């Protein structure tokens, strides 16, 4: 395959790949070989992967190619390569975050099992920052900048076009932050929308499986496959899975609330300008755009997240830390493990009150607009940036997506965040797709 045709394939969206395979214009083998060549061309620069299963991907692609040739498609993702954040168990692959020795896991996490049933090709596990032991993932827009975290490899892998779509996860800001820093579409859904079975746990009531891709259409397609109730995860919602079709031909301009008191002290002028420019473009495109305010006491969300998440994390880690024999306990776990139960319960009561108060904001708007981060990705690789602006929606369990806010003066993506009402992923993604038409999408970064 020529360099030009490799790049052509790797610039396709997941939906375009699925359509190409379904109509016979491309085979899964051709698709996966293009991505393997792309990985070989740029991975040494980006460090997006903790484990690549090239031969496994080729074998799966060969099976899918034969099936497609016989007129049989497994599902709507037949032939689409996926990256999987390392914290998810994938049968036959290591989960380094859970087991540094890298022993192959015996069973697929539920989202991975569903992806395989739908015909997806698992290319490998994407890198998470683990105690600085492995080379940090670099931002494909500028290799001297962080790609964000902890879904670092998923964000960078999609941005560098090594896969069209990837699974991530968010407890604080770990799915939307890499997407924002790398200029991509992403979804953190309503809590419980996607099963967490087989995913390493950080905080039982804050962990959300997420998606990072190129378009809202891709996100909706993948969500329609992996969402839904799972008897292996009792927190999964019983509600119907959102459909893949966003009905883009009939989406009306939305009512958008620009949240003017969403922690301006944490939002740098460059991000505030990006929010204002996006709001103006939405208004020009026919949206109703108004200024809205969060409840006065909304700032309590961070103490709530710290206490609830900290208590849950220290409880989950207690046995693992003891059995490791190293005596190492995370600093936060040492402190939050002594929190009185009354503080955990009171924090959960405050959480419920803020959930109710915030829901009332959607009586007049379809979605809330704000920054996904204080600014673009920071320079340097020592940290993965600031996820604090994403924490409120991880704590309340509201669905949130990233939008294109343009580029910073340094040429790094400025990611905006749009939040919807719980269980309304479909309309939030429709609104996101409408915004994509108005705001445009960033091109692939100039990498390799």
């Amino acid at each position, binding site marked *: 395959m020529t360099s030009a045709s490799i790049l052509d394939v790797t610039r396709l969206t997941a939906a375009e790949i699925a359509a190409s395979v379904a109509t016979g214009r491309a085979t899964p083998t051709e698709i996966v070989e293009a991505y393997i060549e792309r990985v070989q061309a740029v991975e040494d620069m980006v460090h997006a992967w903790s484990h690549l299963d090239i031969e496994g991907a080729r074998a799966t692609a060969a099976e899918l190619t034969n099936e497609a040739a016989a007129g049989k498609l497994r599902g709507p993702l037949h032939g689409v390569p996926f990256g999987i954040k390392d914290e998810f168990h994938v049968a036959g692959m290591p989960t380094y975050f859970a087991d540094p020795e890298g022993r192959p896991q015996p069973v697929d996490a539920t989202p991975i099992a569903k992806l395989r049933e739908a015909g997806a090709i698992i290319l490998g596990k994407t890198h998470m920052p683990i105690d600085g032991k492995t080379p940090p993932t670099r931002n494909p827009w500028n290799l001297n900048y962080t790609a964000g975290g902890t879904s670092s490899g998923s964000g960078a892998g999609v941005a560098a076009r090594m896969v069209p779509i990837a699974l991530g996860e968010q407890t604080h800001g770990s799915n939307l932050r890499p997407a924002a820093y790398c200029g991509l579409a992403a979804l953190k859904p309503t809590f419980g929308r996607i099963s967490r079975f087989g995913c390493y746990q950080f905080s039982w009531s804050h962990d959300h499986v997420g998606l990072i891709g190129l378009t809202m259409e891709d996100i909706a397609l993948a969500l329609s496959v992996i969402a839904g109730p799972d008897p292996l995860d009792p927190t999964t919602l019983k509600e119907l899975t959102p459909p893949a079709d966003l009905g883009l031909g009939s989406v009306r301009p939305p009512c958008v609330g620009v949240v003017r008191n969403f922690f301006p002290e944490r939002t740098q002028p460059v991000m505030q300008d990006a929010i204002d420019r996006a709001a103006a473009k939405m208004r020009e495109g026919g949206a109703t755009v108004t200024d809205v305010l969060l409840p006065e006491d909304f700032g309590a969300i961070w103490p709530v997240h710290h*206490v609830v998440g900290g208590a849950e994390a220290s409880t989950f880690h207690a046995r693992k830390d003891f059995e490791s024999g190293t005596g190492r306990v995370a600093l*936060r776990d040492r*402190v939050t493990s002594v929190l009185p139960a009354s*503080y955990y319960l009171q924090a*959960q009561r*405050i959480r419920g009150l803020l959930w109710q108060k915030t829901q009332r904001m959607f009586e007049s708007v379809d979605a809330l607009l704000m920054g996904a981060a204080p600014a673009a990705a920071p320079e340097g690789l020592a940290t993965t940036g600031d996820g604090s602006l994403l924490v409120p929606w991880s704590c309340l369990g509201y669905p949130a997506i990233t939008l294109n806010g343009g580029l910073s003066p340094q040429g790094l993506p400025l990611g905006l965040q749009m939040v919807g009402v719980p269980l309304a992923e479909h309309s939030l993604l429709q609104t996101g797709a409408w915004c994509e038409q108005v705001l445009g999408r960033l091109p692939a970064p100039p990498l390799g």
Partner: protein
Amino acid sequence: MRLHPEVTQDEAYNWLKQQVVQDGTPDELEKELEPVLRQTAEAMAVISRFVLPDDLEPMFP
């Protein structure tokens, strides 16, 4: 540690430190714990002073 009457950040900090920093805790670890102690104490103070209706139940998603 009580919830009511509300606790100050300093009260929460001192209580947390008593629980976590024991005789024999290395000095370096004690220094590393300091920001987490401060952050957690601040969180406890905010939660302690938050006024809630009596009939509000905890939210368990």
